[in-house]
């Protein structure tokens, strides 16, 4: 049930953000962009090194 409430809150926030962004285009939009950048930065810090080599070496045998 806590899940439901959290979801609802998230939705309300999203709606507010959209409204505010429409009124005064900058601060909230920038905040959102910052949040996304933070997430990508965090993910960058755990991504395997050398993407090309990793992807090339990732070979599996078929299964099932």
């Amino acid at each position: 049930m806590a899940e439901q409430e959290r979801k609802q809150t998230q939705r309300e926030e999203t709606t507010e953000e959209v409204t505010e962004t429409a009124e005064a285009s900058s601060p909230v939009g920038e905040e959102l962009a910052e949040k996304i950048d933070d997430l990508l930065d965090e993910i960058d810090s755990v991504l395997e090194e050398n993407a090309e080599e990793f992807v090339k070496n990732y070979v599996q045998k078929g299964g099932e």
Partner: protein
Amino acid sequence: MTERIAGAVLGTETEFGITIRNQPEFNPVLASSLVINSYAGSRARIQWSYEEESPGRDARGFGYEPAPMADFESGLVNVVLTNGARLYVDHAHPEYSTPESTDPLEAALHDKAGEIVLERAAEAAGSALAPEERLLIHKNNSDGKGNSYGAHENYLVARSVPFGELVRHLTPFFVSRQIVTGSGKVGSENGRPDVDFQITQRADFFEEEVGLETTLKRPIVNTRDEPHADPTKYRRLHVIIGDANLSETQIFLKLATTRLVLEAIEAGTLGDPVTLTDPVESVWRVSHDPTLATTIRRSDGSSISAIELQWHYLETIAKHAEMEGVSDVDGRALAEWEETLELLESDPRSAADRLDWAAKLDLLEQYRERDGLTWTDPKLRLVDLQYHDVDRSKGLYHQLVGAGRMRRLFTDDEVAQAAITPPDATRAYFRGRCVEKFGSAIVAANWDSLIFDVGEDALKRVPMMEPRRGGRSMVGALIDGSDTAADLVHALGGSDG
């Protein structure tokens, strides 16, 4: 009223991807064996018995009988866990089969528990490797190079339902449910047309409508008929057209909606099936369009989109549910299903908090925007792969969870508990509890029996041909009250025949 059997027992089997960093020549069979053998949560290394059951003998209920001696396949790495699950090496992958459950929410929880088991096993296996080497386990279904491995679902179905009925109704359902079950993938494989991003990991690999194969010429509806239960009453529907999912909501939806459709088929309430002109082509065409605009051709000449097809199933089932009432879990499934289809209809990326493919697409698009990457950039392929890493400190699904971006159905504690505790209402309870308490006396196990060595001349075999027998209410007190396996086996009764 007739007994409802469809989906009354269900579970999943997942083959995990495995790789070792900085050890390009690694042997996946040995690495998988190392993972399984390293798992500390295993109380017993138990042989899996592949013996064929004889229906007349096995139709009886609980009790023991003398076990035949020479029918155990040896040499395979196989562990039966205290939660009733099976952890083993299949082909060149570690595989986790959940214990049987009677509830799709509980089954989803046990599917998640499999990730914890593999995460712990991989961590333990890592200590046997050189310092620069790292063993990685991915809950995915493809290496992006044309090799696929499975995530299968199993549902108990009444033998009395004609298989043709299942095929007619399930084919369009399976084609369309990909928009709910997909885990997303960059690019295409297996000779399918090029695409930047597609909804599922597996669609490119389906080449037949109906068939027995699982490793090549994969069929939309698999005909493997191995019920692991009384074959006169039951069939086990072995569903191979699904992706391994990380999202808890998605695993629940996949299992619960498929079960609802099976129930409707069994009850005869689905009406005339929608028939598609070319189901195999429809599978990849649906998967290749994350905008969900693609329509597929029906035999009557009209066209229909995957989302319209999903609405058709949902509305038909919901109408009957309104008239006849539904269980809590089915009601929850119907509500979640409706909400998810609404989100997908408005903007697929708005389902990023609950569907792996939408979450992955959203993440990839953010990367593309920030770093100006084209779809062929290796970094995007890496993000695609690493989304599935079961290591919670590395897996990108888990990073999204940590950032509060994925909707959860379970707490970490619930998942951890499910990794060691069996479901209450099926024979998995008997299996799991016996492994926990009498593990050293079990010489072999499979889904429908346990074989004990209680120090007497003959081994004692306890058949479990009814998946819904052997639960806590039936055997809990018996196990609690038995000090030894011999006590238990004799308390169960039976004959030395």
